[in-house]
């Protein structure tokens, strides 16, 4: 009886509260999914699994807003369970942040994701969030980053200022996992150049603007390098890779020119660390042919080139992974009710033997399911290339997701 009574009291209080105080609107959505990844060849290194890996993911999003949407809170946790790789079983808060919208400014505080850039095959200028290396092979999944961001909207563009307290270490495949080199990465004993370690306060300022057909962005970033240096060390019986994060200053610039059926894209960065200074660029175009063969389908063609001033690696330096690489892609969107899409891509190093072939396809099933297929074929006969160590990791992934 008393339980019913107190439930009733709470319900009445809640109703009163929601009517008298600020009118808060709540909304939830998200997805759960199951993924099966099949590796064509047997594993190359000891303790790695063979054949298939099954995983489940849960990624809900809770959203509250009040003051007619001028204030809001978003919470988006993420969890993946993996049947083979303990490191791929992981939890992350992708977003837990507060947003206030002013007349010509915005304040965002909390854990967030921020994407910068325009190119498709490499995301050079995108620097705020750490890569979630275990979650997807293409590096497009990112870990949430703590930040305070003030965005100022001016006639001459949008200026974003970021304070980034705290750093996230990259995630790597575990001992049982595929898609890794011969040595596993140690998640402990991580070291930093800054004496503040993972608590270094990073800072970034970015300006973006649209001028006619041109969309430009430029930024300065000061803080912990998101790319770790990995050094082999002996730990008892075992050899491991230790992560070391240095400090960096980075200038970045990105440009897209939207000219008719062509999107011309350019990204460049200049990075300065205590070890080295370098430039890198990613440049290319995306062309879309609307309505191929008198159908509703679109055909897109993508071409991009990567360049890096560090050049190819040798015995003394690691060099750059993408120092002179060419990418070609073809995207077909059927524009049907199920939003069927197919992307074929190939990336190849013009100086070395290293080629990656990829297929990404997806289709909605009914109203709220989506099926996707991912294929990666990795080839290299050059032991200087990172891909050489993944040459047995050709795989095919099938994902089924339910959206709510």
């Amino acid at each position, binding site marked *: 009886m008393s339980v019913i009574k107190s439930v009733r009291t709470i319900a009445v209080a809640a109703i009163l509260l929601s009517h008298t105080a600020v009118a808060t609107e709540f909304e939830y959505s998200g997805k759960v999914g199951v993924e099966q990844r099949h590796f064509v060849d047997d594993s190359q290194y000891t303790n790695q699994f063979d054949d298939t890996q099954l995983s489940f993911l849960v990624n809900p999003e809770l959203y509250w*807003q009040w003051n007619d949407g001028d204030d809001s809170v978003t919470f988006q946790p993420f969890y993946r369970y993996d049947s083979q790789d303990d490191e791929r079983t992981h939890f992350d808060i992708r977003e837990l942040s507060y947003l206030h919208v002013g007349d010509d400014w915005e304040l965002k505080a909390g854990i967030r994701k921020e994407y910068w850039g325009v190119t498709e095959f490499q995301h050079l200028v995108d620097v705020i969030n750490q890569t979630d290396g275990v979650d997807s092979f293409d590096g497009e999944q990112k870990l949430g980053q703590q930040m305070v961001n003030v965005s100022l909207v001016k006639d001459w563009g949008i200026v974003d200022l970021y304070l980034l307290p705290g750093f996230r270490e990259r995630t790597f495949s575990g001992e049982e996992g595929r898609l890794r080199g011969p040595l596993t990465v140690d998640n402990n004993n991580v070291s930093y150049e800054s004496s503040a370690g993972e608590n270094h306060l990073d800072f970034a300022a970015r300006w973006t603007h649209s001028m006619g057909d041109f969309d430009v962005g430029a930024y300065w970033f000061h803080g912990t390098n998101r790319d770790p240096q990995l050094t082999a060390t002996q730990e008892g019986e075992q050899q491991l890779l230790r992560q070391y994060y240095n400090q960096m200053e980075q200038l970045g610039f990105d440009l897209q020119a939207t000219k008719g059926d062509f*999107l011309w894209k350019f990204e460049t960065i200049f990075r300065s660390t205590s070890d080295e200074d370098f430039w890198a660029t990613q440049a290319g175009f995306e062309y879309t042919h609307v309505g191929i063969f008198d159908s509703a389908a*679109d055909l897109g063609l993508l071409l991009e080139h990567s360049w890096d001033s560090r050049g190819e690696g040798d015995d003394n330096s690691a060099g750059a992974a993408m120092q002179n690489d060419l990418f070609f892609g073809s995207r077909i969107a059927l524009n049907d009710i199920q939003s069927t899409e197919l992307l074929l891509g190939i990336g190849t190093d013009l100086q070395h033997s290293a080629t990656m072939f990829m297929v990404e396809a997806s289709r909605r099933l009914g109203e709220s399911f989506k099926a996707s297929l991912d294929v990666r074929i990795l080839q290299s006969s050059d032991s200087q290339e990172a891909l050489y160590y993944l040459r047995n990791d050709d795989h095919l992934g099938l994902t089924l997701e339910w959206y709510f």
Partner: protein
Amino acid sequence: MKLKTKIKAALATLTLTTTITLASFSAVAVEADTNAEVKGKQIFTEVKRRDIGWGNSKADMQMILSNKHGQKSIREIKIKTLEQQNDGDKSLTVFNKPRDVKGTAFLSYSHTTGADDQWLYMPALKRVKRISSRNKSGPFMGSEFAFEDFSSFELNKYRYNFLGEEQLDGKDCFKVEQFPVDENSGYTRRVVWVDKQEYREQKVEFYDRKNALLKTLTFGGYKQFIGNFWRAQSMNMVNHQNGKSTELKWLNYAFDTGLTEKDFNRNALKRKN
């Protein structure tokens, strides 16, 4: 009857100029064509004139896609629009259903002349991408509506030809042909029925690039807002070539909603409300 006077005056001026400049040509046929063009344009000048001053609006749109077997699929979309003084409207479109594209947003600055500016926001990657507005003939979300069917009406986007007067469901209508000026349009022409009483579009026929009848759009449930502005509560697009159809239902139309420029900048694409 003010309008009639206006049309007459305009026609008189135009007849005069054409007679002078084309004096030595067979002026009669040209005059007839020009008259029809001027009258067609006059009608749409009035359509546009009656829709000036609405300011801003919010609405929820439900799209019901049906194939020829009667199977249905539903899309839910929120649309905010801001009228511009000397340019095309700004609009922000946010998807709610299907759920896998929830949060996907589309920002459009339409222009009275030249290509529109458009950006797309993909929530999974948190990425804002400027997209080409050349893709106007492509289907919108797998529906029978093309992107260009949603862009704001601007007088200079068409050439006109007045075809006559016709009754449609008991309403006296003008029947006007519109020829898109933009060569990227998926249509050679549109035939539009506008009621004489309130200058509202009642029906549109779309002819494809081969000039064959492609689609028919009918408007229903017109409702007047803030004392002036008529908005259809339903629009039904039937594709005669593939047997599919799409019905739009407009819900929760609201005007004077306090929307300003801040709700239509690139930051607004990423917001969820």
